[in-house]
């Protein structure tokens, strides 16, 4: 995640926050890429460690939570100058990576444990 991708976009307005739509969208895209990548990595890790059933989904939620925390830290904990609400960075796209996670989890689990 290069540092020039997340550009701040709140213009100098005292009460009403205005946002640059392009930057907001680009930030959202970065968040999406991060989540997808982390869900793939998380799937491989869960498969290699041999988690099955509910434990695997717990790993997914854990990986997503870690991703959220890291994204928040990257934004310097001042969410409002990069995104328009907390939900965007914490919850948005939470379930989007689930299918990729399951695919790579199955793949790694099978390769390591079954075969």
């Amino acid at each position, binding site marked *: 995640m290069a540092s020039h991708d997340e550009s701040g976009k709140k213009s100098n307005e005292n009460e*009403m926050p205005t946002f640059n739509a392009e930057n907001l969208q680009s930030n959202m*895209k970065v968040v999406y890429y991060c989540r997808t990548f982390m869900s*793939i990595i998380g799937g491989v890790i869960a498969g290699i460690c041999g988690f099955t059933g509910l434990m695997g989904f717990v790993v997914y939620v854990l990986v997503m939570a870690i991703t959220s925390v890291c994204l928040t830290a990257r934004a310097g904990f001042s969410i409002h100058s990069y995104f328009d609400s907390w939900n965007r960075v914490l919850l948005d796209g939470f379930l989007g990576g689930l*299918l*990729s996670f399951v695919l790579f989890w199955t793949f790694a689990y099978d390769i390591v444990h079954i075969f």
Partner: protein
Amino acid sequence: MAEELVLDTAIRDWVLIPLSIVMVLIGILRYFVSKLMRTTQSPDAKIIKEGSVVIRARNLRAAAGFIPLKAFRARKVYYTNEENGLLHVPKGQAQNPQAQMFSDPNMAMDMMKKNLSMIIPQTLTFAWVNFFFSGFVAAKIPFPLTQRFRSMLQNGIDLSTVDVSYVSSRSWYFLNLFGLRGLFSLILGEENATDDTQRMMQMSGFGFDPSKSLGAEKDGLDIVQHDWVLPKFEQRAQAVLRKRLSS
């Protein structure tokens, strides 16, 4: 039945990995083919004009608080005026663009081409998987599912006592189909043609845009309450400047 089946290594080498690799390659191929086959549509002047009018009206609505009330009213009347307001579409004309869009041969050809480029590789791959890779257990999914999924996931395997977690290669194909979307969005950048539902929504939404959205924008502008966000902003600017200068 909690026995652990031990599966042949050959299955892993010759089924799982090749299937995944083939699907990734087909996805990449489809992306490049659709990029090459994209006919440059000569833009229709009327549609672009209407589109930019809609965008301007939307900007006006969004930034209504930043201009004084009289200026906002003047602009609003310019758009929603009954005789020659930009957003006012007389009833007779409203139907035409829709019908024209559908009978326009170019648009139909384009939509058909895009749909075909989506459906054909999927169908071919599915037929190939069914033909070659059926009748054996291909993978074990790491989480348990209920018995109702058995017929869906284990269609080639005719033993009813095998655990539902052991699935056939058809379900591996579907798992790949959905799971590789994320991977494609990482590899190919944002513009990739693998998410078919999203593109079909885009395609169907584009045809209706000009005629309906004008009316929608007009209604939106009518509803807007002007909220003057910068009252007394001269005093505020003065206060800020004073603070700056004094510190």
